[in-house]
């Protein structure tokens, strides 16, 4: 297949945060790269970079605002600065610092938010970033990436470093199924068609891509061929792929591990409304904070499952 997709590995693969950490350490030979940490490097896996390049690794302590400002200064001195922390502490706590010290002056800083979504599990809602994509998309000029699995996170990390400008990469805590192989193509701003189909389109990112593929198998058993798009780049979004989906299939389901407001669903709907109105349905967290529990239990309780996607596709096709 065109993107080298083999099959959904139901055996668990690496967490996207782990793939990011490994890829960053591998890219670290580039002496322009520096990493700023808010004392969570063993959770974000930037400890692998730290081990190889201690002189270019700065742990500023539990101080996200300062971490972002220090990264802005390093970028101002010509460095490619990576700040990694739990996504909610980075994006929510340091929002104004990102706005004023990075986005507005267009500094070459890479923001990596890990432990995104409710799939972090037992640590509970204070640690769950469910507003972070909306916050990141709000900044003019910010590129926003939500990769689906280990191999695409590695590719996303490389693309993020190569891109000149502020970029947000969202990673998760749990292990996730492997969708791509290492030879798969990855281009910022270009959706990957991970399954062909002409009846309905499922647009997803993050852990919802694997679930979308699972749902598509279920739809196939009902005689429905679903196209599945991995919309790993939320901003700038691949509007042409969305327009093609609206033209060539009977409706669009968007699935994301994020609140309904300001994320992938809202972004896709904006393109659909302007270019080619069609039936849509949304699978997301709606408008609520979650609770503590096992990741699988939480995903089921809050409706982030292949079955929920399947039902949404049926609704779209029924009208």
């Amino acid at each position, binding site marked *: 297949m065109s993107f080298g997709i083999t099959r959904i590995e139901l055996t668990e693969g690496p967490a996207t945060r782990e793939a990011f950490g490994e890829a960053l350490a591998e890219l670290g030979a580039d002496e322009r790269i520096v990493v700023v940490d808010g004392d969570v490097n063993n959770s974000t896996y930037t400890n692998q970079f730290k081990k190889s390049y201690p002189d270019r690794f*700065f742990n500023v302590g539990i101080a996200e605002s300062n971490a972002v400002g220090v990264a*802005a*200064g*390093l970028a101002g*001195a010509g460095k490619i600065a990576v700040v990694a922390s739990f996504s909610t502490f980075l994006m929510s706590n340091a929002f104004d610092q990102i706005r*004023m010290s990075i986005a*507005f002056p267009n500094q070459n800083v890479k923001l990596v938010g890990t432990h995104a979504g409710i799939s972090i599990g037992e640590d509970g809602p204070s640690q769950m970033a469910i507003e972070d994509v909306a916050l990141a998309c709000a900044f003019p000029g910010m590129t926003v990436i939500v990769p689906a699995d280990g191999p695409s996170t590695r590719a996303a990390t490389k693309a993020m470093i190569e891109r000149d400008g502020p970029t947000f990469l969202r990673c998760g805590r749990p292990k996730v199924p492997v969708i791509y192989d290492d030879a798969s193509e990855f281009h910022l701003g270009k959706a990957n068609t991970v399954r062909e189909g002409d009846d309905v389109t499922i647009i997803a990112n993050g852990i919802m891509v694997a679930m979308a593929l699972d749902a598509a198998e279920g739809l196939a058993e009902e005689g429905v061929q679903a196209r599945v798009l991995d919309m790993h780049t939320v901003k700038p979004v691949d509007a042409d792929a969305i327009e093609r989906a609206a033209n060539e299939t009977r409706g669009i389901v968007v699935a994301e591990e994020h609140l309904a407001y300001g994320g992938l669903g809202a972004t896709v709907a904006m393109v659909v409304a302007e270019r080619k109105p069609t039936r849509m349905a949304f699978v997301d967290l709606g408008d609520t904070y979650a609770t503590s529990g096992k990741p699988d239990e939480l995903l089921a309780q809050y409706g982030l499952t292949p079955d929920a996607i399947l039902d949404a596709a049926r609704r779209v096709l029924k009208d």
Partner: protein
Amino acid sequence: LRYDPADPKNADRDRFILSKGHGAPGLYSVLAEAGYFPVEDLMTLRKLGSPLEGHPNMCRLAGVEASTGSLGQGFSIGIGHALAGRIDGKDYRVYVMVGDGESEEGQLWEAVMYAGNHGLDNLTLIIDHNGFQQTDAVDHIQPLDPLDEKLRAFKFETRTIDGHSLDEVADALTWARSVKGKPQAIVARTVKGKGVSLLEASPGDWHGKPIPPDEEAKALEEIGV
């Protein structure tokens, strides 16, 4: 300062960051005198199309090291430049000016803690201690003194000066360059509106306000323009 208006991004330049971005007119005057743009352009301040925006914008004006105006952020950016200088083995120096009212922002103290703990001796913090903030005297809102003792507790070397004495300013900057192993803080005691009797008479009443047109001539005469 080591600077070159013809090569404003030179990797070896000294850096000056105005963290209290509302002091932009002062920064612009100095940049104009230093040759970054024609002095006549100062009259375009805050006008549509001018790079001399209400607060400094580094994307539009050479010589501006950081876009500021949301308070408390400049010293962190200064730390980034100081760390880059350290890992690159460069001998440039970084100076960051903050306001006293601005020092109520928590981020400044996150940054001060880091700079002190890591002995960033290529970094100087200058506090414009004029005693007033937007609505009232600093002492009536969040008294900061003793600032020098606070900063020494955070492992800074400190010096308090009369910020209007050019000799004391020059001596303090020379002293700062001589300090090894610690960041330096210069607490510059200043008077808002110094030199203009109308402003000095009630320094808390003029924050962000222009001098009335009928007082302009007298004010300019008093400061010798």
